[in-house]
């Protein structure tokens, strides 16, 4: 198909371009016009980070072919405020604390602006409906709703423009005052550049060849035909690693690219640097890999069985780590119990789903320092590992943490920075890699799934006499943060309760699943879910209010933890009182009493969502009167 010519007005400036037919409006804006306020989050119209106005209509620019905007008027987030100034919506986002990582925020600001343009007096429920096409992973949306309501009220004259200003100092101190975020203006305007927004002259584009098999030996790997292609600058494989190949947070068991064997679907095998992404993608198809497929193991309990397929030579039992915790005598504790409760729990693998997919830019500076910009959550450790991998002195490796568009633990692993460094060294040119959403979801670390068996003994008065917990975590193909995850999972497993007799065992296991790694709350979410479920089951059996049961067992200052550490302070009783009071909790045992509770549907709840019924909801009356 031949290239297409188009004229389009972007932010008031008319442009004439000849574009390839596959070019999307988002590419035209970002790569040609460097309007990087429109972000790419999914490439499939599902997340809204690329939202723009085309002839005044809110559209997702990743779904719009560039040729389709011929003759149209396009507005991006960069057009909203006059240079250096912020629109009312942007100021409201700043004031409300609506931006966290900021990656979804330009799209949110566009969606909010569209909502207010179409209905300047939209109600609180309609705000939610109008933002329904934009995903935010950081904020929980509350402060975004606050921001849109604030902008609406200021624009309608219900609240004065000064409502957008900085608050007074609380007690004369900056500590304890909700100072507006200093980085928010750069986020609400889209001015902040994440790694995937950065370009350098002569920059090459990188694509990664990934394993289609979960477990296989690589019999041969031939990159010669791909390397000979016009536009391909270099290809790297495990053979290009000059130093000690291996990364990982606790055990360096993962090579920069597969070394003789692949252990999960999506594992990197080779990386291509080419003049453009199309060439790099075509080159991947020319790399020849011969595999000998091995049996895989996909269940952690099966992986622990004798005779299971073995992933790593150093761990013949597929065990990453076992963490035991022992305190007191659990059998004596169960013997003393009036009630014993047993249950099994299972939690699933979870994706971090930060809106910014992994991206990085690397180059070798004039002093020979290998420099990598990436949204890494741990530049200190990455520098140590990369220095060993590249066999360079540590001061010849420089890691720069670009703004992180959401991390949640998922950007602690050095899964692609090594490839970028090798390509920058091999080509002598800047190289940039941006993951697709599918690559990000399928190949990066997840929250560990866990299988937890739990036994808890309690006396009639509610005191826990013994807890025995066994949790098996699926670590997937590489160690990453598994050891730390199961350690934290073990330490916190018993919950914040003074229990005399405790036996806890957590296991991290290798399988051929997508690797699991660090994820916000790091192994303890799984075990504490089980503990807090067990306690409600116990409260029902004992006829006790669940707050009261927890109070009777609460760890207090002076108590020792399950790891036998004396606590000098403990605020559990304070937070129990705080939540109980705020929720106006009606006391009683958890005996399926929802139908007869008197504390439901009060302050602090939203109306249930009944799709389609909400656009009719008028602006709250008090506000409407004030406007009038």
């Amino acid at each position, binding site marked *: 198909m031949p290239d297409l010519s188009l004229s389009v007005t972007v932010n008031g400036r008319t442009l004439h371009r000849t574009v390839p037919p596959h070019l999307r409006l988002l590419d035209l804006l970002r790569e040609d016009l460097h309007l990087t306020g429109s972000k790419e989050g*999914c490439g499939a119209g599902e997340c809204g980070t690329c939202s723009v106005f085309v002839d005044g209509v809110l559209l997702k620019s990743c779904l719009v072919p560039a040729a389709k905007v011929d003759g149209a008027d396009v507005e991006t987030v960069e057009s909203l405020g006059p240079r250096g100034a912020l629109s009312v919506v942007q100021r409201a986002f700043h004031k409300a*604390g609506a931006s*966290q990582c900021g990656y979804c925020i330009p799209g949110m600001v566009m969606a909010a602006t569209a909502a207010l343009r179409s209905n300047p007096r939209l109600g609180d429920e309609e705000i939610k*409906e109008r933002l329904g096409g*934009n*995903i935010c*992973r950081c904020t*929980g949306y*509350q402060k*975004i709703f606050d921001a849109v309501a604030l902008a609406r009220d200021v624009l309608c004259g219900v609240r004065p423009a000064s409502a957008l200003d900085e608050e007074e*100092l609380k007690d004369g101190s*900056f*500590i304890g005052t*909700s*100072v507006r975020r200093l*980085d928010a203006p750069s986020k609400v305007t889209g001015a902040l550049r994440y790694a995937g927004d950065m370009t350098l002259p002569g920059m090459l584009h990188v694509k990664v060849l990934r394993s289609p098999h979960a477990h296989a030996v690589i019999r041969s790997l031939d990159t010669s035909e791909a390397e000979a292609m016009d536009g391909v600058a270099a290809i790297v494989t495990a053979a290009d690693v000059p130093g000690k190949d291996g990364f990982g947070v606790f055990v360096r068991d993962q090579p920069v690219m597969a070394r003789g064997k692949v252990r999960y*679907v999506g594992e990197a095998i080779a990386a291509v640097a080419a003049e453009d992404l199309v060439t790099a993608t075509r080159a991947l198809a020319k790399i020849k890999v011969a595999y000998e497929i091995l049996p895989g193991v*996909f269940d952690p309990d099966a992986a622990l069985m004798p005779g299971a397929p073995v992933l790593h030579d150093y761990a013949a039992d597929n065990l990453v780590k076992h*963490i*035991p*915790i*022992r305190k007191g005598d659990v059998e004596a504790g169960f013997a003393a119990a009036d009630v014993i409760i047993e249950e099994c729990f299972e*939690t699933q693998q979870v*994706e971090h789903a930060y809106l910014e997919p992994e991206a990085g830019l690397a180059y070798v500076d004039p002093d020979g*320092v290998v420099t990598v910009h990436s*949204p890494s959550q741990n*530049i*200190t*450790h990455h520098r140590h590992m990369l220095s060993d991998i590249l066999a360079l002195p540590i001061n010849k490796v*420089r890691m720069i*943490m670009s703004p992180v568009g*959401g991390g949640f633990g998922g*950007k602690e692993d050095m899964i692609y920075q090594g490839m970028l460094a090798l390509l920058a060294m091999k080509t002598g040119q800047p190289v940039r890699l941006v993951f697709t959403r599918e690559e990000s979801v*399928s190949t990066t670390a997840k*929250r560990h799934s866990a299988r937890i068996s739990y036994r808890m003994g309690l006396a009639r008065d509610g005191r826990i006499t013994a807890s025995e917990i066994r949790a098996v975590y699926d670590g997937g193909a590489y160690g990453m943060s598994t050891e730390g995850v199961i350690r*934290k999972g073990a330490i*916190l497993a018993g919950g914040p309760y003074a229990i005399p007799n405790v036996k*806890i065992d957590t296991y991290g296991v290798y399988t*051929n699943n997508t690797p699991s790694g660090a994820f*916000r*709350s*790091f192994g303890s979410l799984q075990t*504490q879910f089980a503990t*807090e479920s067990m306690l409600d089951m116990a409260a029902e059996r004992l006829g006790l209010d669940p707050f009261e049961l927890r109070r009777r067992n609460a760890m207090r200052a002076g108590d020792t933890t399950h790891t*036998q*550490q004396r606590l*000098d302070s403990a605020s*559990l009783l304070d*937070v*129990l009182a*705080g*939540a109980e009071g*705020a929720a106006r909790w009606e006391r009683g045992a*958890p005996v*399926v009493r*929802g139908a007869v509770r008197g504390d*439901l549907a009060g302050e*602090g*709840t939203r109306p*249930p969502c009944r799709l389609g019924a909400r656009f009719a909801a008028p602006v709250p009356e008090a506000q409407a009167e004030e406007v009038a």
Partner: protein
Amino acid sequence: MARKRGRGMAAGWYGIARTASIDRAGTWVELDDGGTAKVVTGVTEIGEGILTVLAQIAAEELGIRPEDVTVGDNDTARVPEAAHAGATRQTYMIGNSVALACREARARLFDEMAAHWGTDAASLRAHNGTLRAEGTNLKCAMREAVDICKKRGVVPVGAASFTAHHTGLDAADGSGRPWQAYVFGCQVAEVEVDTVTGEVQVLGVWAAHDVGRAVNPKGVEGQIEGGVVQALGQGLMEHYQTVDGHTVTPGFAKYILPTALDVPQVTCVIVEDPDPIGPLGVKGIGEPAMVPTIPAVMNAIYDAIGVRITTLPATPESIVAALGRKRQAETAAQARAQ
């Protein structure tokens, strides 16, 4: 009634900073021309608001304003080690490190200004851009103070390292001191369960969390609200699935995330039980905010419909299936009774 409501609660705890290993963070500070400051340390924003928090801490300690603070961060070749952006360690480790470094830079400035004014350095107070000597009418802008200090031949700089003295766990019984600061949290959830479709809507969450000391209360709320919603995603809808190692949920059409229409109203209760060890009393909130949400929601589902969900996520399909099993069990029990 097809739609049933219920409430549940759950508590939780968490350790601050790196687990079962010593943790440390370094900072360099310069009180700069114009009464501004450069604070240089090795991590950057991952969205939690740490740059603003560090600027607030530096402003308070140095006696200037947050907008006068430039945080130079994120570059292993230009800044001291502050290690990773995770483990709920940023406010605790780096915040305390910044405070200590600022105190050193401030002391250098105060010594020069005390000599310049002929007063005792202990009487000097700097706040919001102004330096005063208590009990006198001596005062000047911090801009002038820095200028005077430099003309006396001293650049007011400071450096500090903050350490969390954690120990490893015993290999046999796990005993040890994995953290020096602990936080606690408790949440109540209110749900509505549609017994026909199995859909669970979380309508309200009340979340009380100890953060030590809230440097930026709105930022703390943002962490709690975001943590609650992320946990709600895992509790009710998110499920990364593979078949023989092949991902079958590779995009947001298959991997379902909470949207604006799925989220409860969240009421935050910030509890401040200051850390007795660090200079600021701060602890943290990033990760612990997620911990109580899922069990609180599952306990609320039980309160509403009498079904105990032990396998996550509690999707509409799994709720319908669990209700079916409950009905079968009840029918069987009735049959036995007759």
